[in-house]
Each structure stands twice: as structure tokens, then as C-alpha cells.
């Protein structure tokens, strides 16, 4: 059961990461176009997304079981990306947003802007946790190797 859930969340976290990244990219580009600001200025907002994607790919390539088979971590990743997607969708689709209707941009930038700091906190937290779980994995492998050597 645990393996099934883990597999499900493991696959979902990639899809949700791409979805959350795409939605955030769309909203921030629209926000910058409205403000007539340089598109390059939004790049720092995407650093945590890219770092996390790179870490996920490293976990996958190096088959780091400590991260990829960690149900709690995978579940947290899914929850974080779902929250980002929900916030993005609300900023675009929630017609009860007063400022959304007032400014008529189709996106409630004020609402989304309130969440940007939370998004960063959550993403950087996941990055730190991922890196720390990686250390644990490395240690486990070393221990297993030394045990095998002893047996031999």
C-alpha cells in the first residue's frame, strides 16, 4: 500500500511541479507585461522551481531511494505544488475577486502577489529537505557497503 501511494505521489510531483511552474510563469509574465518591465526581472522568482527540478532529476538519475521513496517528502511536494496551482487558478478564475473585476486584467495580481513569499518559503524548504535527505542516502550506502565488506 505504502509503495503504491509513494509511486503515485512520486509521479504526481513531477506533473504538479511542471503545472505550478507553468502557471506561475504565465501569471508573472502577464504581470510584467502590464507593468512594462523587463521579462528578465522575473527570473529570480523561478530559481527555486528550477533548482527543485534539477534536484528531482538528480534523485531520479542517481536512484536516491532516501528521497524518491520517502512517502512523507513526496506527499509534501504534491501538497505544495497543489497549493501553488490552486492559488494561480483562483487568481485567474475566481470571479468573486473584487479587484480582478475592477482592473479587468483577467488575473488578480494583488491576490497572487500575497502568496509569492509563501511560495518561495515552501519551495526553498523543499530544496533544503531534499539536500538533507540526499546526505542520509549517501551515508546509508556507505554503511551497506561496509557491512557487505565485513560479511565477505
Amino acid at each position, binding site marked *: 500500500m505504502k509503495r503504491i501511494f509513494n509511486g503515485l505521489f512520486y509521479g504526481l510531483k513531477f506533473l504538479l511541479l511542471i503545472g505550478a511552474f507553468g502557471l506561475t510563469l504565465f501569471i508573472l509574465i502577464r504581470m510584467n507585461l502590464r507593468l512594462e518591465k523587463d521579462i528578465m526581472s522575473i527570473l529570480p522568482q523561478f530559481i527555486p522551481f528550477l533548482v527543485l527540478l534539477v534536484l528531482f532529476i538528480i534523485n531520479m538519475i542517481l536512484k536516491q531511494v532516501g528521497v524518491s521513496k520517502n512517502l512523507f517528502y513526496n506527499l509534501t511536494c504534491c*501538497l505544495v505544488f497543489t497549493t501553488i496551482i490552486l492559488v494561480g487558478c483562483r487568481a485567474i478564475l*475566481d470571479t*468573486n*475577486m*473584487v479587484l480582478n473585476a*475592477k482592473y479587468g486584467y483577467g488575473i488578480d495580481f494583488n491576490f497572487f502577489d*500575497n502568496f509569492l513569499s509563501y511560495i518561495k518559503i515552501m519551495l526553498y524548504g523543499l530544496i533544503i529537505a531534499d539536500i538533507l535527505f540526499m546526505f542520509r542516502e549517501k551515508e546509508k550506502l556507505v554503511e551497506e557497503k561496509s557491512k557487505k565488506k565485513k560479511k565477505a
Partner: protein
Amino acid sequence: MKKILLEYANMFAYTFTGLIFGLAFFLLFINFYHMQELAQTVDVSTYNETTKASIEEKIETIRNNINVYNQSTYTGSLNIYGLNTAQAKLQSCLDIIESDTMMHYLELDEIGINDSYNFVIDYKNEILNGCLVMQIKSMFNTDTISTLPNFDLVKPYIDMNVDTMLSADDYVQNNLENSDHYYFTTQANKNNFFNLVSDSYSNTMNNYLNSLDLLVEISNWYRSVVVGG
């Protein structure tokens, strides 16, 4: 030593994940809650029925008062340009009050936060700017009107009331606009929000009625000027 450090790393990793899990869980469900709060509607059918009757009564009074004057049959000694201007300006206000934009709010049985907000905006645009500032304030700044009896007594009263009304609805608009912003809901916030839709609506409606009362007073003054002159 290395093992202890790695154990600590593992512990911190779980701590970080736990904290992020808590934050994400909180933000996800508070968003659903906030979404429901914004979708809340309030029944105003009874309130609108009584208000509509009151507004229609005031409209009728204003209409009767301004129809007292007819240029072709007027035989008094007062400046007819002044009387014509006042009648035209009051008639413009009457047209605004009776416009579909303002009247359709009285037909609503249920209102949401957007209706409440649109009502504030329309009231400010149509009644405050379109009528009280563009018609009434400008009317009392024309030379022809200044020749009419009791002008000096009426003008300060009108100016003071219009100035008060212009800013009376600002905080309602600000409150409604702030409802979009995410906040950590407390019981006080919750109570405040649940009353926000209906309170904003009734507050704007009260201001609207006050504006109509002012127009009734002006039309009464106009009637007394025409009949007296």
C-alpha cells in the same frame, strides 16, 4: 561524530518537510475557506422592497417640486434663466436616479460581494459625481442661480452636505477591495467579513437615501422660490 551529524541532518530534513507540510496544508484549506467566504450571498429582498418604496416616494416629491415651474406660463419676477437652469439640473439628477444603472440594484433579491462593490462604484459615479458634483454643486456656482431668493442660506448647507457625502463611502470601498487580500482568519475577521456584503450594501443604500433627501430639500427650496416669486 560524522554519524551524529548525519542523524541531525536527517532530523532537520524531516523537520523542514513537516513545517512545509503544515504551511502548505494550511494555505490549501484556507484558500478553499476564503473562496467560500467570497461566494457568500445575502438575501436583501425585504430590505430592497421597503427601500424601493422610500426612493420612489422621494423621486415623486422631487418631480412634483420641479414641475411647479413652467417657463411658458411663469409670470413671476425672478430670473427665468436661473429657474430654467435649476430645473434642468434637478431634472438631470432625476434621470440619473431613475436610470437602469441605479434602479436595477433595487430589483435584486440576493447580493454577493461583487454586487455590493458595484453598487458602491455606481453610487459614487452616478449619484455623487454625476448628480451632486456635476449638477448640484455646479448649479450653485452659476451667476443666474445666485440671484434667486435665499441662495446665500442654501449654498453653504448644500456645499457642506455634498462634501460630507463625497467621502462617506470611501471606507466601504476600501474594505471591499481589501477582501481580496489573503489574511489569517481570526474570529473578528470572520465576523467582519460575513457582515461585509450586507453592511456595505446597506451603508451605501443609506448614503444613497441621504443624497436623495438632500435633493428633496433642494427641490423644496426650488418650489418655494418659484411659488414665492
